[in-house]
């Protein structure tokens, strides 16, 4: 009875500690249980995620989606897919570098799994609350880059290697704005621990305090997980399937698994860092505006269970936005991808970090949490509008330039060079370039 109660209240580990005592092996066993629970959850939830993604994308594209296997809603479609993958032949191409080729799918899943170790699911329910939590996540996720290189190089296939190099260039590029944007919430929470960051958002989620940081993080997490519009990792129309061209069967399945796992993880991380994870920051904000004491889920009865539900709702809401974006936006080109990162996101993030750091020091200490939040929000909005204005100006300059070139070219045309035929094009281009140079 006690056991069941602790199971429902999510205090199972405390209960087991009470029963088993304080011996060293108890913690080891509890850790093993924790690892198995977290990992199994990750593996099984992917089955659901793939079904969800196919269903939602289908509705966005005005289709029905999976509707045969497992009843009206095709609930067992993914299970069937997994069984199909299991029954495929597992082989290694003759020319491949066998150790590298076979290690890559393992490494990518391991790095996607290890990130979950510090993600808090509810108050007190977290693999381990490291004091360097967010930093640990970033460093573990950087291992996945290595596995892409292993896969591309080990396959000994031109498409695979080219795809791997492109992917690595994309991943390392977008890691910069991602890391720098995470500096902002850490700076506000004064801690890298995930639980402390949630604690710092008791009455004001960072989404409303530093929205720019949240947006930058969200965009770069799209790119880091290789999702549309940044899915150049497997641009089917250009490089077959990118780095996993040579993979089949379950080894291919592992890349698929890791992609979905890390996407869900990024949704969870976004929910934790910018939406307050398992806490209820928006409700608390309203409550504290009316002078009511905010609700702290870590002290009330069944708080852990409520926290878990709250966190899952937030995580899947963010995940839904990922799918939504996939259903809406087309893929960008590789030059657009890199330019957008290095010439827009990185400079913007640097400015943001600088401004938030300085503003945070200038705000007088006696202001309340909400007051500080309001000032941060104002500066963020100011930077946001400033950025949009700068972009507008530069876009207008470019447009004017193009228009002038075009009018110059058509003017040129009117004055009877029509019979020159082939040479004309070169002439136009040169003339156009002169006009550009003159401006």
């Amino acid at each position, binding site marked *: 009875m006690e056991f069941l109660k602790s199971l429902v209240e999510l205090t199972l580990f405390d209960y087991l500690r009470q029963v088993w005592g304080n011996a060293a092996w108890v913690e080891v066993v509890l850790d093993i249980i924790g690892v198995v629970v977290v990992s199994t959850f990750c593996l099984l939830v992917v089955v659901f995620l793939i079904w969800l993604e196919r269903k939602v994308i289908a509705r966005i594209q005005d289709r029905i989606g999976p509707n045969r296997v497992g009843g009206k809603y095709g609930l067992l479609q993914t299970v069937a897919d997994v069984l199909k993958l299991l029954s495929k032949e597992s082989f290694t191409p003759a020319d491949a570098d066998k150790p590298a080729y076979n290690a890559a799918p393992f490494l990518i899943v391991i790095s996607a799994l290890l990130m979950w170790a510090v993600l808090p699911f509810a108050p007190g329910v977290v693999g381990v609350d*490291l004091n360097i939590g967010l930093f640990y996540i970033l460093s573990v996720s950087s291992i996945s880059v290595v596995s892409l290189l292993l896969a591309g190089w080990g396959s*000994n296939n031109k498409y695979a290697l080219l795809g791997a190099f492109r992917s690595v260039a994309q991943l390392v590029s977008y890691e910069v704005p991602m890391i720098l944007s995470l500096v902002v919430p850490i700076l506000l929470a004064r801690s890298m621990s995930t639980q402390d960051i949630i604690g710092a958002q008791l009455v004001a989620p960072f989404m409303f305090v530093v929205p720019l940081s949240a947006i930058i993080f969200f965009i770069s997490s799209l790119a880091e997980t290789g999702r549309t519009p940044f899915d150049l990792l497997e641009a089917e129309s250009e490089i077959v399937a990118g780095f996993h061209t040579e993979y089949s069967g379950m080894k291919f399945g592992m890349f698929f698994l890791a992609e979905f796992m890390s996407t869900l993880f990024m949704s969870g991380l976004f929910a934790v860092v910018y939406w307050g994870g398992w806490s209820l920051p928006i409700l608390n904000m309203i409550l504290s505006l009316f002078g009511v004491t905010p609700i702290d889920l870590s002290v009330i009865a069944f708080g852990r269970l409520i926290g878990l539900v709250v966190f899952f709702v937030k995580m899947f809401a963010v995940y839904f936005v990922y799918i939504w974006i996939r259903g809406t936006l087309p893929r960008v080109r590789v030059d657009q991808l890199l330019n957008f990162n290095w010439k827009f996101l990185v400079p913007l993030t*640097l400015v943001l970090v600088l401004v938030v750091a300085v503003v945070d020091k200038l705000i007088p200490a006696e202001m309340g949490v909400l007051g500080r939040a309001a000032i941060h929000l104002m500066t963020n909005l100011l930077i946001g509008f400033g950025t949009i204005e700068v972009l507008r100006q530069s876009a207008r300059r470019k447009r004017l330039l193009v228009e002038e070139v075009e009018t110059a070219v058509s003017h040129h045309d009117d004055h009877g060079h029509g019979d020159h035929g082939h040479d004309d094009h070169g002439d136009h281009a040169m003339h156009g370039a002169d006009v550009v140079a003159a401006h």
Partner: protein
Amino acid sequence: MLSDWQFIAIFVVLAPIFPAAPVILNYVLGPKKPNPIKQETYECGIETIGSSWIQFKVQYYIYALVFVVFDIEAVFLFPIAAAYGQLGLFAVMETVLFIFLLAVGLLYAWGRGVLEWV
């Protein structure tokens, strides 16, 4: 604390089991009929010519280099951000100078056209 890292260590040891289980199951359940054509490198139907391990362009290296610089910058910024509540104005100025110097590097790379993907 080592007790914290104990969980991570156990996770690292156990984590390979989870990808290994389906891959091994796949190996056991799947057919095993290798033939030379099947094991060829995938291309467009003809045999692949030359090595895939060829020379890549310098662009990738430059991106990696800029990345390394900003990665190291972030490593410095993280503990500063965590300690921010206990820092004075002098420390803030130091941090601003630090970020500013690296921004100069980015601007230089931008100005030289290094960040242009060709």
